[in-house]
Structures are given as C-alpha cells and as structure tokens.
C-alpha cells in the first residue's frame, strides 16, 4: 500500500508538490495575507466618534488626515529619518566588527564574538530598554561615570538621542550577522589579486570588499530599517515629549482612541515604505544574499 502511494506520487510530481505546499501556503494566505487585506480594507472605513463602533462607509478620510496634517507628516518624516540614521550608524559600526570576525579573528575568538552578539538576543527586549533607562536617568550610570571623569552631566533621558542610542544598540546584531555572512563569502583570492595588482589596503576595501559586501549590508539594513520603523515601545519608555513615531500613533489610536480604521491607515504607511525599500534592495541583489 505504502509502496503503491509512493509510486503514484513518483509518477505525478505535481501531486507531490501540491501535498507538500498546501499546508504552509494555506497558512501564509489565510493568516498573513488575509490579515493584511483586512487591514487595508479597514483603513477605508471610519468609526462612530461616540460608541467607537466601526462604520463601514467607504472613504479616504483617514488618508487625507494623515497626508494633509503637518503633525502626521512630521511624524512620518521623523520616523523615516530615525530609521535611516539608525541604519547608517549600525552599518558603520557593524562593518569593521564583522570584518574582524570574518577575516582576522581566530576561530576561537570568532565563536566568543558570536556568543557576545547573539546572547543579548536571548534577553528580553524590555529588560534591555529598561537597563538603558537606568543608564540615562538623572543620577544614573552615565551621570555617575561622567561626574567621576570630571565632565559635566548630559541630559539624555527622555530625548530622541536616547531613543536613537537604544535603537542602534538593540538592532546592531541584525546588521552584524548578514554583513559577516557576506564578508566571509568573499574569496581570499580576489583580495590577493587586488593586492597583486598594486591596490593599497584602503583601495582594496573600497573597490573590492565593500561592493562585494554590499548585498549583506543592504540585507542587514532591511532589518534595522523596518524594525525601527515599526517600534513604539522604546520611544514610549526612553523617549520624551517629541518621541512621537508612527508606531506610537498606531498604538495610541488602537489603545486609547479605539480608532482602528485610522490606525490601519497609518499602518499602511510603513508597509508602503518597506515595499519600496524591498524593491530597491532587490535591485541591489540583497535578497539573494540573505
């Protein structure tokens, strides 16, 4: 019996593929795409301002509000700017680190560094944000260290600098790992060829190494950019009065105002931005490198 089934499947490759792919595909379509479609549809509805029941009246009011209000446009620019800044800084920090890991460190050191990068990912996101809160707070670790060095205190807590620092720290591993993978893949022979042809170390890095590692950097930037774009907890905890990001607007509209249609419309903005970003990344060949 079992033999006959396997023989039948062997003769019909399409049946094999169907049976294999149906469960994961159904899962993807039903739970993932369907949720996104519902979100898209909800964005065109509105709520009754009093009972906050959803009224299924088609209109573009939510999108008009987002794109005509200077405050919401400001929030979008601030969020994209923050995501871009975090991505650039993480890339600059991650490259030498990944280079050292991939090409210089002994295998033992490399393992140790891997553990050092991956271990924080095991810790709770919130525990990490709260520890930064303790570092930044009035009279906290930062103030204490600066005063012992005889420097004047800096006021970082509840500023966007604090949000920026925490984002850079939290998403750094997501940049290091793909950059490491890309650098490790570069054949040593190509670097030797570059040197044999008379290139200096800096020229080799700039003309050979960085172009070959670029897909890895772009792959890492997908993580750092999208994670920053959607986060609301870090601004909520360490951010101050101007820490209003897209995620916070969505959170407030769901959690306090119960205005799900407006939140859905706002959520479409990062989705569109990421779609554009991914198309750009594909053009740079980053998606093959992940």
């Amino acid at each position, binding site marked *: 019996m079992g033999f006959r089934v396997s023989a039948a499947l062997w003769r019909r490759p399409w049946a094999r593929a169907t049976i294999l792919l149906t469960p994961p595909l159904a899962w993807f379509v039903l739970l993932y795409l369907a949720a996104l479609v519902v979100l898209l549809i909800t964005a065109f509805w509105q709520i009754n*301002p009093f009972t906050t029941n959803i009224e299924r009246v088609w209109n573009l009011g939510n999108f008009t509000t987002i794109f005509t209000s200077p*405050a919401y446009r400001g929030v979008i620019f601030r969020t994209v700017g923050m995501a871009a800044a975090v991505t650039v800084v993480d890339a600059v920090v991650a490259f030498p680190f990944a280079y050292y890991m991939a090409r210089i460190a002994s295998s033992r050191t490399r393992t140790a560094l891997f553990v050092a990068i991956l271990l924080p990912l095991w810790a709770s996101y*919130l525990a990490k944000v709260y520890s930064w809160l303790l570092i930044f707070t009035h009279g906290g670790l930062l103030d204490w260290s600066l005063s012992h060095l005889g420097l004047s205190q800096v006021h970082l807590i509840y500023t966007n600098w604090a949000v920026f620092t925490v984002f850079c720290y939290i998403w750094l591993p997501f940049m290091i790992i793909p950059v490491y993978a890309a650098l490790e893949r570069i054949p040593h022979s190509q670097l030797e060829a570059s040197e044999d042809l008379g290139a200096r170390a800096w020229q080799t890095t700039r003309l050979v190494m960085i172009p070959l590692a670029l897909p890895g950097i772009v792959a890492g930037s997908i993580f750092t950019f999208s994670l920053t774009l959607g986060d609301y907890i870090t601004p*909520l905890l360490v951010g101050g009065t101007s820490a209003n990001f897209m995620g916070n*607007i969505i959170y407030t509209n769901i959690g306090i*105002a119960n205005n799900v249609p407006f939140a859905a419309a706002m959520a479409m903005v990062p989705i569109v931005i990421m779609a554009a970003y991914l198309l750009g990344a594909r053009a740079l060949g980053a998606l093959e490198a992940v």
Partner: protein
Amino acid sequence: MTTSKARRTARRIKAALALTGAAIFVAGCGSSGSSGSQTGGSGSVSGQTVPTANLPVLKTIGKGEGKLNLIAWEGYLSPIWVKPFEQQTGCQVNAKYAGSSDEMVALMKNGGGGQYDMVSSSGDADLRILYAGDARPVNMSLIPSWKEFFPAFQSPPFNTINGVHYGVSLQWGPNVLMYSKKAFPTPPTSWSVIYDSKYKGQVTVPDNPIQIADAALYLEKHKPSLKITDPYELTQPQFQAAVNLLAAQRPLIEKYWDLASQEIFDFKNGNATIGAGWPYQVSTLKADKFPIGDVIPSEGATGWADTWMLAAKAPDINCAYMWMRYISTPKVQAEQAVNYGETPDNKLACVYMDKIQAGSCEEYHANAPLSYFDSIALWKTPIATCDNGKADCVPYSEWVSAWNTEVK
C-alpha cells in the same frame, strides 16, 4: 497588614504590566470616571436611546450558575474579597483584566458576547457601553446596600439613564497634584506650578487626551472670560484655549507618563519633581519612604468613578446579582478602598476602613465626601452634544487627534 502585602502585589502586577509593555496603565487604575454634573442628572444623550432599556429585569435572585466571568481593572478582584464571595455563593469568579477603558468597551461589544457577565468600567466608558446596547437594566431592589451609598452614587448619570440602572456604582478617586517634598518644602496650592516655566524639565503628566480636561479645569478658574462650566463639555474656542495651554506646557514636560510605574520611577530618580498622578502612585512612593506630597489644589481636580455594569448577554445572571449585592456591602467596600487606595461609594464603609488600617477613612476622604466630592470633576466621555442640548461641543475623537497633533 494585608494592605502593604496587597500593595506589593499590586506593584508586582504593575511591573508585570510594564514588562508586557502592552497595558496603557493610563486607563488601568480606573482611568476614567465620569459625571460632571454632580447631582445625578439624566445622563441621557439627546437623539440617542439605549437599545436595551426595555429588556426585562430579574425579579428574584435564583440559584447560582456556579461561575461568574468578570472584566476588571487589575487589583479589583483581590482574593481578599473574592475568596469569601466564592465560599458564600459557590460562584467561581473568573477574571479577565483589561488595560484601558477602550479595551473594556471592546470586550463588552455584542453584549459581552454571551461570555462575560460584568465589567468594572469607568465613567468615560460606561455611556459608550450602554448606548451601544451592550449593558442590561438592573433591578436595584435586589441590592439592599445600594441604599447606603452616598446620594451622588446611587443614580449617577454615567450608569443610570432616565431612571434605568445598568449596574451598581463601585468606587472613585481623584487625580492629584504630586510633588517631591525635597523640591517643594511648602506644598503648592495651585495647578499653576505645572504650567510655570520655573519648573521646566521637572513636570510629568499622563499621556492621555483626557488631560485636556485638566487644562480646562484650570482655565475655568483662571480665565473666567472663557465661561467654561464643565471641563468635559468644551465649545471650540474653549477647547482651543485648553489645547493651547497644553501646547505651551509641552516644553516644560520631562515625560508624558503611560504607566503608573513610569511616574514612580521618575519621582524616585529625580527626573520629575512635580506632576499629576493617582493616589496609587502616592501610596506606593510613601511605602518606599520617598518624601512625596499630594494635594488637591484650589482649582479642584479631575477624577474617576467606576461601576460594575451588567452585560446585555450575561450568561450567569444570578451570580452577577449576588456579586453586586456583595461588592456594595460596607465591609467589602472598605476592603477594596484601603487595598487599592480609592474612596468607597458606601457611606457605612468608613468604620470598617479604620479597622483595616487606622486613619484610612480620613486618608481616602470616605468621611467627608460632599465638599470634597464637589471639588472633583469626574471623568466622562466628551461628546458632541452638550448638556444644554446644543451640538457644539468637541467630541472625544477630536480630543485624541488634538492631543496627538497639537499638544505632543
């Protein structure tokens, strides 16, 4: 005894809340309350009717269903008073904790879905729940202790519409002016300190659109030309004046707090020295020996008042009535008041409060309510129809967008 233990538990709950990052505690402690008109007005909204007003009420309490599913604020279903109830009635209490008024409104959609029996909602959520047809009329003659309530809470406009009750009032409390005694050796007497540029970078207020009412309350006393009479019913010019005051306050703000634990952290670490908060934060900081002071300033204060509302499709209606009977009795009212740090609605609770913790009746104002009560403007949902019937008030949805786009 149990009090400090319960506070610790409450604190742990709050820490857990903070850690899930999910709960906006803003609403958590009974974020909302209600009723600006203190005399127990009709509470009716012109042009709106309560869809469930004519549902029949229970005539006699029958045999319990053996269970009771409650939506509540954290800390409202402590074993201290839930355990004895379960033993007396055989009704097993299942708790579903909600983090905000809006979560409560959402859970109560479709009459509680035939799953939930009651919700301990606050005044700003109550009207939304009952006008959506999700609450059910209650026969008050089956709840004897209700007659012992302070008159203001017997038929308050946030849970009683045209003489029909949709639940039984529970407890209430003020949003107080908190100050660090280190920075303020003499207690401030006016809310003006949180609008004073002298305290730039030291002020903390809740990250909640209802904060506009606090500004309106301040303007009511300081800008009589605006003719504000109710901080929750603002015409466009009054609303704009309050929003402008808050926008001018923004540079002074160190942090808009979302979680009670955040405010506690900021006072402890000296990030903030003055701000608006709840008695819960005050008692927690006091328990930690932090020199915190709290005052209801000369302008008065905003506050919340909670109600146990009966779901339209409550499956365990006999147990629900037993719960309303039980939770309104003086002793249970006292237990919750002392544990949570709020004011009971039952005027006989005072004696029991002092038995649990000497001086607590005085501390939570359970003995002198009328003048104290008059100084508190209880939270309610701002709606477009003002009390005078004109539709020129600014509705809550605009409060939210002004808070997000003009204040912050």
